[in-house]
């Protein structure tokens, strides 16, 4: 929609300004990332990760839910194809974000920018990048990335290292940080959209049931997550087509 919006020429000249603005936007994101990735590191530690592997998973993943799912699978010694499928499901929302971003790229933007920006699509970096009017500014996003990404990766490594030094009460408390972050994504959406609210409740119940029903509970956690996600989302898409909101919400809120 904004493809036709005229773009000021000075954009080329102000890369440095955009980058600095991006750095500033990256600070609160980085602080949030640090706390959450620290708890991710604690989970990674209990799955047998060392600090370097903690740094690596976060630099390669940049995704709380996706990395958390990956850690659970590694702990469970799952098959590689399970890892591929679960990652696909857990990170499917980035497909939506990438799609939304593709609609806002300047037609003149190089493949290099598209390749680099894509690597760092997360809920928060997507939000700040797409929150600016007009075409997306690659250098603004790079600024935010330069603060947020190291916080995410280093936080995970520190979680692996310091997680074992912390008293059990603190580890127990931090273990819910990640789930708190998931709630921060799903609850506001549920508040705005009754269908999403119903889906969240259904998902909670179904997830609990799948863990106790004989037979189903024997399946790995990753497989149960895939099956439940596909079945519930497909049923919702069939019975409650999201229509226009599927477009506007993805740009406004994620």
């Amino acid at each position, binding site marked *: 929609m904004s493809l036709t919006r005229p773009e000021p020429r000075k954009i080329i000249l102000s890369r440095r300004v955009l980058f600095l603005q991006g750095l500033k936007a990256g600070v609160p994101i980085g602080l949030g990332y640090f706390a959450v990735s620290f708890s991710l590191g604690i989970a990674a530690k209990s799955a047998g990760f060392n600090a370097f592997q903690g740094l690596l998973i976060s630099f390669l993943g940049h995704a709380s839910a996706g990395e958390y799912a990956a850690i659970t699978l590694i702990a469970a010694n799952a098959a590689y194809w399970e890892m591929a499928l679960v990652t696909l499901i857990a990170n499917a929302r980035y497909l939506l974000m990438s799609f939304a971003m593709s609609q806002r790229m300047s037609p003149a933007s190089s493949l290099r920018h598209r390749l680099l920006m894509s690597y760092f699509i997360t809920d928060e970096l997507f939000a700040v990048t797409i929150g600016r009017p007009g075409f997306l500014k690659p250098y603004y996003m790079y600024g935010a990335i330069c603060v947020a990404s190291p916080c995410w990766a280093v936080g995970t490594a520190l979680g692996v290292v310091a997680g074992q030094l912390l008293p059990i009460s603190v580890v127990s408390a931090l273990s819910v940080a990640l789930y708190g972050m998931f709630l921060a994504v799903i609850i506001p959406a549920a508040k705005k959209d009754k269908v999403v609210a119903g889906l969240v409740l259904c998902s909670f119940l179904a997830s609990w049931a799948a863990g106790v029903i004989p037979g189903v509970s024997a399946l790995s956690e990753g497989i149960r997550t895939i099956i439940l996600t596909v079945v519930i*989302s497909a049923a919702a898409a069939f019975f409650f087509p999201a229509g226009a909101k599927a477009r506007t919400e993805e740009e406004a809120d994620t």
Partner: protein
Amino acid sequence: MTHNIYLYLLVMAAVTYAIRVAPMTLLRKPITSPFIRSFLYYVPYVTLAVMTFPAMVNATQTLLSGVAALIVGVAVAWFGGGLFPVAAACCVTVYALELFV
């Protein structure tokens, strides 16, 4: 069979990047299928919800503190708390309950 952690991470990284890069580089037109659009719209919420419960209430030392953290987290998120405030509120709830109860 034991798997290699670096191979796991490589698989995760490759799939994750493919998801992120494909639309940005290949797709220039909007997806038109209402079903696929709706499906993609619901997927993140459903998958996060499935991963949150009951895992969250089982993650803590006591069931009570896990349940309380869930309730507090939902409440803070409902009243507009962002990523960090919600995560912090959940942690503080668990810490306080396991300390005093």
